């Protein structure tokens, strides 16, 4: 064993080739020196990456502790951003309010009561100017969590950067832009699936040629899981959506090695510890195999499933909320042992409201405890080789492959067509609702124990702690701001650029991004641009099935 381990470690050292490591002692609390990786077979960093994407694991660099934030007006969020940057952060993560996510302006009747509540409100380029005011966009990376109107928000980001003298080619960041999971889970769609997919492939193409540092899609299982799926369904549906984007982009003549390098993923980490770890390991292996064998990728970077992880919001209980700190810690550790590239930890009070500052700090501290106190970051894939974890990894893969086979069947050999068909025939929403109901019945019957909910309920009578409240002044302020912008702009230019967006929507051979950038620069509103495309694309209404 020890001879084998010596050989494995020596081969690993050759693989990392003198790359710099973090300056921490690589030993246990008792002073036992430890190697970077244990076992046999492919290392972390070797195809198919079951054990991780990089040979050094977290020895050279910890995961990115990326916490998601956004509230109120653009100016409020701008202050929070500057605070993050002053404290050494280099990444900004933007949460938008519900009307923005749905492509509605703050003065729409649909927006009543929702403006600035769950994120920042963006109606026009003027809000984007406030949001990123006095921030050097060539030096930060920005993550924007938006899907339906993603093209418009990306156009606003490009416009605001170029107004500040930063060329689009220098912009680094990610836009979620994963429209397929919206029909399956999160339900923030605007247009039907096929025109929406055209917008996504236009964005992939546009960023390929003009924004080489931008990640145009973050393929997200998080929302699928939150909507009620189990771990295997989250894995299967997410990777199937990924295959669908790859098929669509290849069909548009794009190079899998080019765009494949810039796709990334976003998973949930729930409480069933070993199942989650198996899921993360299986995700890397499946993605690598399909990208190489099915889609012909030859660049290793295009085979790598890079992912962000967030702990499971849906697992947080309103009962005895402090218990959630324990849940989040376990879920965070699963994400780390699963090899995530970045992590958001939920705050214990989030079953009831947006987090208070103290709760958000505890959530970040939980990651820091995992990183610096547990030793989990010293060894790459420490659970690799465990009979149970390896079996679970294989089992997750088997279950996902069964779903892929079903979708291929639905799509006559095409995963893309299979995903469209599964959206049309209610397969995804049905599977997700069934799993959610099964879970609820198990909890109701007492077969599954949720601490503080159906067992160990002493303490539930305590009153709720302080919760963050967002006042409704934001809504009034934002509506007035929009009125001023509309009054001051050149309405002829707005009409002309919106007409060009509609014309581009009518012609599939034209990329939508340039006319959308022109429209945002004329201070056309988010909703006006959404409507300019809606004339051509139509809207999507989900069948109400329970």
């Amino acid at each position, binding site marked *: 064993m020890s001879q084998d381990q010596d050989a494995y470690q020596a081969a690993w050292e050759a693989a990392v080739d003198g790359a710099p490591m973090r300056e921490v002692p690589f030993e246990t609390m008792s002073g036992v020196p430890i190697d970077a990786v244990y076992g046999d077979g492919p290392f972390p960093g070797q195809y198919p990456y079951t054990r991780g994407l990089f040979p050094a694991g977290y020895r050279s660099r910890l995961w990115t502790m990326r916490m998601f934030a956004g509230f109120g007006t653009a100016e409020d969020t701008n202050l929070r951003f500057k605070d993050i940057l002053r404290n050494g952060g280099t990444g900004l993560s933007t949460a938008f309010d*519900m*009307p923005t*996510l*749905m492509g*509605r302006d703050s003065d729409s009747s*649909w*927006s*009543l*009561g*929702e403006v600035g*509540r*769950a994120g920042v409100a963006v109606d026009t380029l003027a809000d984007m100017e406030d949001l990123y005011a006095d921030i050097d966009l060539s030096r930060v990376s920005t993550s924007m969590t938006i899907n339906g109107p993603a093209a418009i928000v990306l156009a606003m980001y490009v416009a605001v950067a170029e107004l500040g003298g930063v060329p689009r080619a220098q912009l680094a960041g990610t836009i979620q832009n994963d429209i397929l999971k919206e029909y399956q889970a*999160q*339900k*923030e769609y605007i247009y039907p699936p096929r025109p929406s997919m055209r917008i996504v492939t236009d964005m992939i193409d546009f960023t390929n040629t003009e924004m080489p540092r931008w990640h145009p899609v973050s393929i997200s299982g998080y929302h699928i899981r*939150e*909507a*009620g799926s189990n771990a295997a369904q989250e894995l299967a549906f997410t990777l199937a959506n990924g295959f669908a984007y790859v098929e669509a982009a290849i069909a548009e003549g794009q190079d899998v090695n080019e765009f494949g390098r810039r796709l990334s993923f976003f998973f949930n980490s729930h409480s069933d510890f070993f199942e989650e770890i198996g899921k993360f390991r299986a995700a890397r292996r499946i993605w690598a195999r399909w990208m190489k064998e099915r889609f012909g990728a030859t660049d290793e970077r295009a085979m790598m499933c890079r992912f962000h992880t967030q702990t499971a919001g*849906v697992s947080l*209980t*309103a*009962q005895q909320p402090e218990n959630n700190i324990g849940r989040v810690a376990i879920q965070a550790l699963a994400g780390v042992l699963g090899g995530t590239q970045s992590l958001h930890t939920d705050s214990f009070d989030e*079953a*009831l*409201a*947006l987090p208070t500052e103290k709760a958000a700090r505890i959530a970040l501290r939980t990651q820091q405890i995992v990183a610096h106190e547990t030793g989990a970051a010293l060894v790459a894939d420490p659970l690799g080789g465990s009979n149970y974890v390896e079996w679970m990894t294989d089992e997750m893969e088997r279950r996902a492959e069964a779903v892929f086979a079903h979708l291929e069947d639905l799509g006559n050999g095409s995963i893309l067509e299979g995903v469209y068909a599964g959206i049309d025939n209610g397969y995804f929403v049905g599977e*997700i*609702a069934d799993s*959610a*109901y099964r879970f*609820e*019945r198990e909890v*109701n019957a007492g077969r599954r124990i*949720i601490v503080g*909910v*159906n067992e160990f309920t002493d303490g539930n009578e305590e*009153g*709720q702690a302080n*919760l963050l409240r*967002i006042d*409704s002044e934001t809504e009034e302020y934002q509506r007035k701001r929009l009125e001023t912008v509309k009054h001051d702009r050149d309405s002829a230019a707005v009409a002309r650029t919106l007409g060009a967006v509609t014309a581009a929507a009518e012609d599939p051979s034209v990329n939508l991004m340039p006319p959308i950038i022109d429209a945002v620069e004329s201070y056309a509103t988010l909703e006006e641009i959404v409507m300019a495309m809606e004339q051509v694309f139509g809207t999507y*209404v*989900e*069948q*109400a*099935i*329970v």
Partner: protein
Amino acid sequence: MPEEHKIRVVLAKLGLDGHDRGIKVVARILRDAGIEVIYLGLRQTTESIVSAAEQEDADAIGLSMHNAGHLVLAPAMMAALDDADLDIPLIIGGIVPDVDVPVLQAAGVAAILGPGAPADEVVAAVRNAVAAAAT
């Protein structure tokens, strides 16, 4: 109300909020308990809900809210029911902090079901609200 009357409940998501896991689970819980459920789906307006409640001769309306809009949307729904002269109990489910419960009750909401409410509590809330409205 005669014993054999089957309770009919209109369930809907009012406004932009797309979180529909809870309301779908509630729909199945109510059906399993012998209550007739008419689920309108996402992105409903107060008008569409009033009109469905009238057409379906509903005994109660259940709305699910997860985006902190309940203090605006629940009173708006009550006002729409008043305008239409519909005396049907309104039940709100979802994320409602304790401090908001009396506010919603004062606005006329018949029952509020928070996160983790067990199935029997959900069913009882509907039956009690309908029974109270009938007296």
